[in-house]
C-alpha cells in the first residue's frame, strides 16, 4: 500500500512545520493521546479487525479508483496507528502526511461508521489527528485564518462590529422594497427567536439573510438578531479541532441568547454549526444537551410550513433532487422533515441513490472547502461519486440545506458539467410563499 499524492503547498502546514521543533510535536501527541483521547481510542484501536467493510463506503476511496490508501481503515492505519506503532516518535514528514490525510481526505462524514460491524467512529479518530496537528500549530492556512478571526471577533471573517450592524440596516432598507414596514430587529430583548447568521450571509451572500428576514416578517415571528459579537453561527474551530476556540464561540452564542432572554436560537442552513452547537461544542463545555433549544433551518421551516405560518402559493416544476447534509441527516435524523418541506415546495422530486442517512457526503464538509484553493482538487476528486449521484437523477435543481454542501456541489457542478442549479430552502421558500396583500408596500 503505497501513499502516492501530488505535491500540494499549504503554508499552514509546510511553513508551520518549519517553525516547530520535535519536542513540541512529542508534547502534542502525548497530550492528545494520553490526556484528551477517551476510552474510545483504546476500544476502537483494539476492536478494528481490518475487515475492510468500511472501504467502499468512502467517497474518497471511490473517487480515487479504489486506491486502498483512501480506505477509511487505511487512513486510520496511516495516522493514529502509525503514531501508536512509533510510540509517538514521529517526524515532521509524518506530521505532514497525517495533516494531509486528516484535513483533505476525510470529511468526518461518518458514512463509514454505518458499515463498520463494530461501529468504530473513524471521524473521531481522524479528529484526534486534527487535534494533535492543531496543538502543534499545523492547520491549513485558510481554516486557520478563520479560526484566528473567531478567537477574538467570534465571526469567521474578521468582520468589525459596525460592519455587521450597518449590513443589517441596509438589508432592512432593501427588505422594505418587498415588505411594508419590514423589520430586522437588532438586539431586541425578550424575543421568541434569536436568529444567528452564517458569516458569509453578512458579506457575500446577503440575499440569504434578506430572504430569511422576509420569511420571519411574513410568518410574524417575534425575532431578533444580536447587536453584539456572537451573530455568526459558524465555528470553523471545529475543523481545526481548536477546542478552546470552539468552546468560546459556542458559549458566546448561548450567552447572547440568555442575555437577551430569548426562548430559542434559530440558525439557517448549515451543518457544522448545528453539529457544534448541539453536541460537539455543548458537550465540550459540559452540557449534556443545549441549554436552550437550538433549531436548524430545516426544523424551523418544517414548523412554519406544517403550522401554516407561511403559505406556499406555487410549486417549483423543474425536477429537483435533495442533498442530505451529513451533520443534520446522518447525525441528527432530519431526513423526513427535509423531505416534507421539499414536497411542499416542489412538484417533481427525484431522489439520489443512496439517500437520507446513507447519502454520500458532498466532499466539501468537515473543513475541506474551508481549506481553500490548495485543496480544491482533493475535494473535487473525492466528490466524483456525488457528481455521479446528481447526474443520475437528471434533476435540474439540487436542494442543499447546508452552506458547505451548497458551495461544494456548485464546484462539482462546474467541474463535472452537471448543468444544475444549487439552491437553499430559504431562497425557494422566499420565492414561492405568499406575501399577504396588506404586507406589500
Amino acid at each position, binding site marked *: 500500500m503505497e501513499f502516492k499524492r501530488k505535491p500540494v503547498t499549504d503554508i499552514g502546514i509546510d511553513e508551520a512545520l518549519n517553525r516547530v521543533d520535535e519536542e513540541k510535536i512529542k508534547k502534542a501527541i502525548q497530550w492528545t493521546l494520553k490526556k484528551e483521547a477517551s476510552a474510545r481510542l483504546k476500544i476502537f484501536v483494539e476492536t478494528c479487525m481490518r475487515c475492510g467493510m468500511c472501504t467502499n463506503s468512502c467517497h474518497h476511496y471511490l473517487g480515487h479508483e479504489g486506491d486502498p490508501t483512501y480506505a477509511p481503515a487505511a487512513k486510520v492505519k496511516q495516522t493514529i496507528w502509525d503514531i501508536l506503532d512509533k510510540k509517538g516518535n514521529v517526524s515532521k514528514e509524518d506530521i505532514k502526511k497525517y495533516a494531509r490525510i486528516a484535513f483533505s481526505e476525510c470529511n468526518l462524514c461518518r458514512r463509514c461508521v454505518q458499515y463498520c460491524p463494530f461501529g468504530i467512529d473513524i471521524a473521531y479518530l481522524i479528529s484526534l489527528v486534527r487535534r494533535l496537528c492543531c496543538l502543534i*500549530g499545523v492547520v491549513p*492556512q485558510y481554516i486557520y*485564518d478563520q479560526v484566528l478571526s473567531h478567537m477574538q471577533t467570534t465571526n469567521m471573517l474578521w468582520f468589525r*462590529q459596525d460592519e455587521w450592524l450597518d449590513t443589517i440596516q441596509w438589508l432592512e432598507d432593501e427588505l422594505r422594497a418587498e415588505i411594508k414596514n419590514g423589520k430586522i430587529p437588532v438586539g431586541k430583548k425578550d424575543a421568541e427567536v434569536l436568529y444567528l447568521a452564517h458569516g458569509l450571509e453578512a458579506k457575500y451572500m446577503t440575499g440569504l439573510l434578506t430572504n430569511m428576514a422576509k420569511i420571519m416578517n411574513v410568518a410574524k415571528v417575534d425575532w431578533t438578531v444580536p447587536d453584539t459579537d456572537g451573530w455568526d453561527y459558524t465555528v470553523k474551530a471545529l475543523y481545526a479541532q481548536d477546542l478552546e476556540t470552539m468552546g468560546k464561540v459556542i458559549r458566546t452564542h448561548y450567552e447572547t441568547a*440568555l442575555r437577551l432572554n430569548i426562548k430559542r436560537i434559530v440558525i439557517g442552513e448549515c451543518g457544522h454549526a448545528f453539529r457544534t452547537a448541539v453536541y460537539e461544542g455543548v458537550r465540550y463545555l*459540559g452540557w*449534556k*444537551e443545549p441549554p436552550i433549544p437550538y433549531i436548524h433551518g430545516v426544523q424551523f421551516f418544517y414548523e412554519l410550513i406544517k403550522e401554516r405560518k407561511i403559505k406556499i402559493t406555487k410549486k417549483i416544476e423543474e425536477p429537483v433532487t435533495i442533498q442530505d447534509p451529513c451533520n443534520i441527516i446522518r447525525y441528527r435524523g432530519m431526513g423526513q422533515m427535509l423531505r416534507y418541506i421539499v414536497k411542499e415546495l416542489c412538484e417533481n422530486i427525484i431522489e439520489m441513490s443512496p439517500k437520507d442517512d446513507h447519502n454520500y457526503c458532498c466532499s466539501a464538509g468537515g473543513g475541506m472547502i474551508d481549506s481553500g484553493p490548495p485543496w480544491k482538487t482533493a475535494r473535487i476528486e473525492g466528490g466524483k461519486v456525488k457528481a455521479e449521484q446528481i447526474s443520475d437523477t437528471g434533476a435540474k435543481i439540487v436542494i442543499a440545506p447546508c452552506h458547505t454542501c451548497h458551495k461544494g456541489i456548485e464546484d462539482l457542478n462546474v467541474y463535472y458539467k452537471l448543468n444544475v442549479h444549487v439552491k437553499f430552502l430559504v431562497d425557494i421558500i422566499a420565492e414561492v410563499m405568499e406575501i399577504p396583500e396588506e404586507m406589500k408596500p
Partner: protein
Amino acid sequence: MVNWDWDIEEKLICDINEWKEKFLFVHELIVSADREKISATVEIEDKKVTTCINGKIWENIFERICFPQYTQEGSLICLVLQNYEWTLAKDDSLLEETFDYAWNLKTDLSGKSIAFNIKKGDSYGVCLNGKIWDNLFFDARDIFLSPDGETSASYVKIKNPPLLDIFSSKEGIWTVGINGNAWDKSFISVYGLCFSTDSKKVAATVRLSQQEFTVAIDGIIWNETFLNAWEPIFINENDVSVPVKTENGWTLAINGKAVWRSFNQLWHQRVSPDGRIAAVVSTEFGKWTIAIDGKPWEKTFSQNVLPPFFSPDGKKIGAVVRENNLWTVAIDGKPWDIGFDRIWSPQFSPDGKHCIAKAEKDGVYFIVLDGKIGKDVFDILWEPQFSPDGNKVLIGCIKNGKYLRKVLRLNEVLR
C-alpha cells in the same frame, strides 16, 4: 427626572394603542427605572423616525435610532443617524460631534457618563462624554466604563496584517485600549475586561498561544498560565479571580493560584456582599449548580444554571435554573416547585426574606413572589422592584394596550 414615588398605587401613564394609530410603526417599548416613562422609536414616515416618550415626540427627526435606553437619572439616550452621520442624542439634544458609525452605547452606574464605540474614517475607538479618544485603532470592539465613569476601555486591534497572514496574527494583534492608550503587549485574543471596584485597575483574560491563557492586569500578565480561562473579576480593589482549566479540570484561580477543587466546568463567579465567592459549576457532565467558596449545592440541574445573585446582606444566594425544559429560581440550593417558560432577573427584598421576579408561561406574564404566581396577568410586564423598605413592589405593565405604573403592597401581589 427620576420619580421614586411609592405612594400612588396606580397611574395610567399613556395609551399605547393611540401610538399605533398615530404612527406608521412603533418599535420596541422601553421604560425608565422609576417606571414613570415609556418610550419607543416611532416612524412618522418611511425612514423618518423619532422618539416618543409618554405620547410626546422629540423635535429631532432621524433616519435611524439605535440602542435607545434610559439612564439611571431618567434621561433617554440613543445613537442616531441624521443626514447620514451618526451621533448621540440625549433628551432630544444632539452631540455636536458626528461619526461615520457609532454603536455599543453604555452608561456608568450613576448614569452620568456616556460612552460608545465610534468609527472615524478607517479608524476606531471610543467617545466618552463627548470626547473622542486621542488615539484611534484598526478596530475597537465592545465598550467598558469604570464604576466612577471616568475611564473607558475597549478591545483594540493594534496591528493589521493582511488577510491570511496567519503567522502575524498568531503573534498577537489585539490588546486593551484605555482612554485611547493601548497596553504594550498584544495577544491572540483578549476578553472578559473588567475594572477594579475603585476604578483604578483593568484586568482581562489573554490568550498567548493555543493552550496558554492567563490574566493581564494593567497590561502585565501573571506568571502562571492555564490550559484555558474564562472571564476574570476583581474580588476587591486588588485581587483578581478567574475560572481556569488545569489538567484536573476547571477551578477558580485568585492572583494566579488555584484555590478551589476542580470541576467539570466553572464560570460566572461573583462576590457576595459578605465577601464569599459563588460561581456556576458543573460537578459532572450534564449536572450544573452553584458552588460557594468551592462547595457546591447538593442539588444539581441538568439543563442550565445562570449567574448567582445575592440578598443585600449576602446571606442568601439564588440562581435561575433550567430543568425539564422549564426555568425556575433556586435559593440556597432549593428550587421553587413551579417552572416557567421564561423568568427575568429575580431580586431579593432588602431584608432578604423575599424574592421576586417576572415570569412567562403560556404567552402571559406575571409576577412571581417566593415561588408563587401573582394574582394579575399582563400583556407586557417589566421587572418588578422592591421599595427601599421592602413593603411595596413597583411595576410597569401594559394591560389592554395601556401602560400603567403600579405600586403594590407585598401582601397584594399574590392571590
